[in-house]
């Protein structure tokens, strides 16, 4: 079964009565299967962020259908949509969006606090620790964001996205605020997670970053311009090794 199915999806923004209607998305048909690593590319204003918001159930389409794991999201009430965001989707943002003055561990625990059904605090904590270890930050659990580097903060955010074992990780310009080395580290982590079977959809406008994905979807003016596999994706790990060799003399 497809993980994401979008059928002639439209999202219009009205600019008031009688004003101009902005067509952020204008007929999107898209299908994503479990285990894919998709890069969505496009210039700013192309509609890629709107596409991302709808895919992440933060926004609803004006027209068309969106099925996530076969569930028609457009018909659900807000509480149920919140539950889907909680259990099926993990977000990674450009600006990390970690809670300030809150430890890495507690940041990762955040989605668990909103999970339906009760579980002991202890079990939740263990689950958060496991997610942090998975992104290589087992030794930084008690650090607050201001004590972590940008790359480390983004890894905490990825751990937070992973902690509820979602079906889909949505990353919006995940390397936008990072330098090249840290970006490569994050892409290495994404590729690792992808090899582990996790579905990743990443919005980016940098071709250098998109080349680490398996499939590239280009959006322009609210429509899909191009959609196809990336023939021979680069291995971030190797690029990172080469980059470090070049820069440590």
């Amino acid at each position: 079964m497809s993980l994401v199915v979008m059928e002639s999806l439209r999202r219009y923004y009205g600019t008031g009565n009688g004003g101009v209607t902005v067509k952020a998305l204008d007929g999107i048909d898209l299908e994503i299967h479990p285990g894919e690593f998709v890069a969505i590319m496009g210039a700013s204003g192309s509609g890629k962020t709107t596409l991302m918001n709808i895919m992440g159930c933060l926004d609803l389409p004006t027209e068309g259908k969106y099925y996530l794991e076969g569930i028609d999201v457009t018909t659900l009430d807000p509480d149920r949509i919140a539950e889907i965001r909680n259990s099926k989707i993990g977000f990674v943002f450009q600006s990390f969006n970690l809670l300030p003055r809150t430890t890495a561990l507690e940041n990762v625990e955040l989605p668990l606090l909103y999970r339906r059904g009760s579980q002991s605090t202890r079990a939740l904590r263990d689950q958060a620790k496991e997610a942090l270890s998975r992104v290589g930050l087992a030794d930084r659990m008690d650090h607050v964001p201001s004590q972590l580097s940008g790359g480390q903060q983004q890894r905490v955010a990825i751990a937070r996205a992973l902690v509820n074992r979602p079906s889909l990780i949505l990353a919006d310009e995940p390397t936008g605020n990072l330098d090249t080395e840290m970006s490569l580290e994050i892409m290495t982590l994404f590729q690792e997670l992808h090899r582990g079977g996790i579905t990743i959809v990443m919005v980016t406008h940098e071709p250098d970053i998109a080349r680490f994905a398996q499939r590239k979807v280009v959006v322009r003016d609210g429509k899909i311009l191009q959609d196809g596999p990336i023939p021979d994706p680069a291995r971030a790990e190797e690029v990172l090794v080469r980059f470090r060799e070049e820069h440590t003399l």
Partner: protein
Amino acid sequence: MKPTVLVKLSFRSIFRNRMRSLLTTLGIIIGVSSVIIMVAIGEGSQAQIRDTINSMGSNLLIVMPPRGRFDANRLTQKDAERIRTEATLVSAVSGTLRRSVTVVGGSGNWSTIVYGVEPDYQAIKQWELQEGEFISEQDVKGRRKIAVIGSTVAKNLFGGVTGVGETLRIGNAPFQVVGLLKSRGTNSMGQDLDDVVLVPLTTALVRLSRNNYLSTIEISAISEDKMTEAQAEVEGILRDSHRLADDKENDFEILNQSQIIEVASSTARILTILLACIAGVSLVVGGIGIMNIMLVSVTERTREIGVRLAVGARRKDILLQFLTESIVLSLLGGAIGILFSLGVVAGLGKFSPIRAIVNPLFILVSAGFAGSVGVFFGYYPARKASGLNPIEALRTE
């Protein structure tokens, strides 16, 4: 989200901005403590009034000349006698004659009040004797020149001695002191209850009055709940005794102790309510302070709210988070206010003559009230937080 988690979150956010939280709760602290202190002082003064009136006697009815018309006085010993024999709801009756006189004793003069009374007066006023005995039936019948004195009089007329057995002079007549009353101290109006000389009514009427009219007739009803009926009975007897026609007004007045208490304490109660309302205004102002800070907090934490919504918080979860925070904030203020006011009330009791009574139930009520201030003034900001659009919230700087 679990309630425990919500409370933990609120405490964290409150302690993260310690100074701000303290200043915010200050309004609630002042509001709650002033309400409690005001009500405590109000209840204290009510109790004081009740005690003062109760010290006048037990289940007391006082028959007086009509108010403002002492010249119209027609109360006689015969009236007192008829009440004593005819009234069924009355346990003790005494006519009195009250005069301000200077009495002369062994070691000096003393201006005091002399009461001519009958033996029942002791029961009516619940006087106890320190020494000697009270005025008896024989004393009254024989118009004996004897006196029972209060401790203030004893001190001023006979120095350190009790005075029993000594002689004092009222006018020119010598009176033998046969009893010393147990000290009662002063009442809340500052009146010295021990500054009295009691003599037999008959003797007083002869020596201190130009006519045979009484100052008052004091009566004890048989019980507190029979006061009104007893009053009606006495009224009937006196009207009959004075041969008043049905269309004539009473030529006397009856004061009823429970009515006096009622009137006096209802005045105090109204004052208490008024003070509490004024103090309550400061509680409302405190609530507005909380609302203000919560609104600031929502704006400051817009991004946090966006993140929480993105990771699966329902609107309800956000609403509850901020509501819990404002409730915890105002309950903290309420708790500090209660402790503070208890301290003030204890201090008042120790270092001032003001009597203040804290009703434990009222502490619960004010804690509840502080909590509802939190709900009332926290709801709007919490509502605003939960209504945020996650996409825009995540985008704010």
